[in-house]
């Protein structure tokens, strides 16, 4: 990319706001995460006057924190301590220019066709298949350089997963990622110091600026303005980075609004804007997650886990069974939390981390649903979600499969992280209890970053919020463009499919506005 300042667009940061202001645009996009950034770029490329709003600040490498808890406190909403009620489960959403792409591991999987079929059946969809979205996947892949993770940066801990899967006859493959010239630092979750990850803040957003988009950071959309069947803009306030202290008010008047604030914020904005787009009653409903859990394995020889792609290998063998397996690395302090013991024993266990790697499983949980509402007038979500026992059984089976893979790869012990079972297991025979006596939901330590469903796409306006172009059924010029429109889990990591849907939606909107 050449100098993005040579274009007609601009970016504003917190220090730029002195007083209340109003902007006028063809389209205002709320949220600069993967879906919003793609939409903003495509609309700017189509010659539209675009204003992109982002509540978080842009992070430069000088702003990254290598230590896990401080990094999360700075980059995640509610300091990384957000959780669901009902079944208590941590869930993390970023607050930064580029949204989750700044701190995710860049996995870009295409949703399998069988799952699109299930979407079609669930939500009466006629033109949302893998084939329909393939041109959009391809365009984004070309833009971001999405490619399988090369062996040169896998590092031993990712390749051990490959070897274990191979021993057991489970297919595995390098994760396709939006990364160029990865150096294998394993630091995706705290911000890529090598600037290799093509997060939205360094890819689509500057490209949109070069094409004329105005990007306003540190501004919080608080209300969608509307008049009859039309939205007329967005109003909100400037907010200070990290503290959220309110500053001047702003207003953006636009011919169309693209709401890409994320699965938990988009429905809240609709609800607090006079319950917009909700004749179906589905806004904020059908909240779904990919609950994830992990198993740590310790090998006889050092694995040197600080080197290697954060999530370099994956196994799609069990997608139809309802789960996906991946390798995982995170800041060592985050991983160490799961190690057993106390005092000197704990310290001894910590020395094992140099010999360790982690596998994780994410489960499609169609039976586990919830809802999201605003917590008071806080603009923060209150989520209630229940982990259905049948879905928990799928994730429990995944724990057993991960144990199998570890021992097939030569692990000397595993730390399954399951409360109802031994802290450590030293053989596949010991691990057998994970299969014969599967852990229950409350026994597993779960977390989720993949969320869907709170403004679902449906062919029938009585049962969904948006149509297949992601236009709200109830309004003529409001588009909801994030993974809240997914009627069901995409079976794999959702970012790429969200972006493909966003691109299709943006191209359709560009024709209309």
């Amino acid at each position, binding site marked *: 990319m050449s*100098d*993005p300042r040579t274009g007609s667009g601009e*970016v504003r*940061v917190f220090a730029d706001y002195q007083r209340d202001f109003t902007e006028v645009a063809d389209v205002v996009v709320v949220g600069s995460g993967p879906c919003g950034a793609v939409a903003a770029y495509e609309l700017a490329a189509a010659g539209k006057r675009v204003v992109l709003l982002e509540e978080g*600040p*842009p992070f*430069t490498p000088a702003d990254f924190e290598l230590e896990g808890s401080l990094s999360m406190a700075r980059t995640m909403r509610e300091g990384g301590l957000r959780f669901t009620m009902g079944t208590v489960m941590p869930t993390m959403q970023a607050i930064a220019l580029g949204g989750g792409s700044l701190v995710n591991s860049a996995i870009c999987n295409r949703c399998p066709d069988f799952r699109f079929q299930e979407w079609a059946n669930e939500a009466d969809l006629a033109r949302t298949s893998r084939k329909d979205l393939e041109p959009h996947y391809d365009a984004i892949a070309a833009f971001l350089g999405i490619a399988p993770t090369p062996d040169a*940066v896998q590092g031993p801990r990712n390749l051990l997963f490959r070897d274990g899967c191979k021993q057991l006859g489970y297919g595995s493959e390098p994760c396709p990622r939006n990364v160029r010239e990865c150096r294998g630092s394993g630091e995706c979750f705290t911000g890529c110091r090598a600037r290799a990850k093509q997060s939205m803040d360094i890819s689509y957003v500057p490209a949109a600026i070069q094409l004329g988009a105005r990007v306003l950071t540190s501004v919080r959309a608080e209300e969608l303005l509307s008049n009859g069947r039309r939205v007329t803009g967005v109003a909100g306030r400037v907010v200070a980075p990290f503290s959220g202290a309110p500053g001047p008010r702003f207003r953006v008047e636009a011919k169309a609004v693209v709401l890409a604030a994320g699965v938990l914020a988009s429905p809240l904005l609709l609800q607090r804007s006079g319950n917009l787009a909700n004749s179906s009653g589905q806004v904020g409903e059908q909240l779904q997650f990919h609950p994830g859990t992990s198993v740590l394995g310790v090998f006889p020889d050092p694995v040197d886990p600080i080197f290697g792609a954060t999530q370099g290998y994956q196994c799609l063998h069990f997608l139809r069974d309802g789960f996906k397996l991946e390798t995982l690395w995170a800041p060592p302090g985050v991983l160490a939390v799961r190690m057993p013991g106390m005092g000197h024993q704990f310290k001894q266990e910590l020395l094992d981390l140099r010999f360790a790697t982690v596998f994780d499983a994410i489960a499609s949980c169609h039976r586990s649903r919830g809802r999201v509402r605003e917590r008071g007038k806080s603009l923060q979500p209150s989520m209630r979600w229940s982990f259905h026992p049948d879905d928990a059984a799928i994730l429990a089976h995944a724990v057993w499969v991960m144990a199998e893979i570890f021992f097939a790869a030569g692990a000397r012990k595993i730390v399954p992280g399951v409360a109802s079972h031994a802290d450590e297991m030293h053989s596949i025979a010991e691990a057998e209890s994970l299969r014969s006596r599967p852990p229950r939901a409350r026994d597993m330590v779960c977390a989720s970053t993949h969320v869907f469903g709170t403004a679902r796409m449906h062919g029938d306006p009585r049962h969904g919020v948006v149509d297949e172009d992601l236009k709200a059924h109830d309004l003529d010029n409001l588009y909801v463009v994030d993974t809240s429109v997914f009627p069901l889990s995409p079976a794999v990591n959702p970012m790429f499919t969200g972006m493909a849907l966003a691109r299709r939606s943006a191209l359709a909107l560009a024709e209309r506005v």
Partner: protein
Amino acid sequence: MTLPGLIALALLAWAVLRFAAGYGPRDPALRQLSAREYALVCAAADAAFPPGGVIPLSGTQARIPAHADRYLAALPPRNRLLIRLLFVLIEHATLIFPAPGWDGWRRFSALSLEQRMAVLEGWAHSRFLPRRLAFQGLRAVLTMGYFACPAVLRAMGLAPLAIETPVVAADLLYPPIGQPKSSIRFGVADLDRAVPRTPLDPRGPLQPGFEAPPA
């Protein structure tokens, strides 16, 4: 004064003593932790990471309280309050889940090291899920603080590798957080600056700030 009045007064005095009296001074460099919270974090840090052993640094030697203070400062107010409530819970739950010994009901930070370790073991293996979750929350704060210490990371072979960060086009747009755009120190010429793009060497130099001090 009636007997119930005397009992109430005695209880009040006891509560004041338990909750507020007898705490030592806190590190004046801390911004968030109160003297009570500082005492609790120090006590818990050394119970989780006692001095000596395979990694010699104790929790307090690894400056866990300083990290906890930075962590609290970085959290939004509501979440900061949650962590503070967790500290209060651990400090005073010995009234319900006492440590071994006749004096095991004293506040957590007043217990001996062995008693504190026993208390935390009890929380770790409780059959009561919320109690286990509370323990995990406390241990997460402590463990991440321990791992924020470069000497600890070096001892485990997990210190981050040095990376020369290239300048990308976006770096011409964004200032560091909180700064005006006039503070952007990169220009177009920086985009052409050659930096290594090859895979890192796990035996390569460590990130500045994480290297071992000179002998």
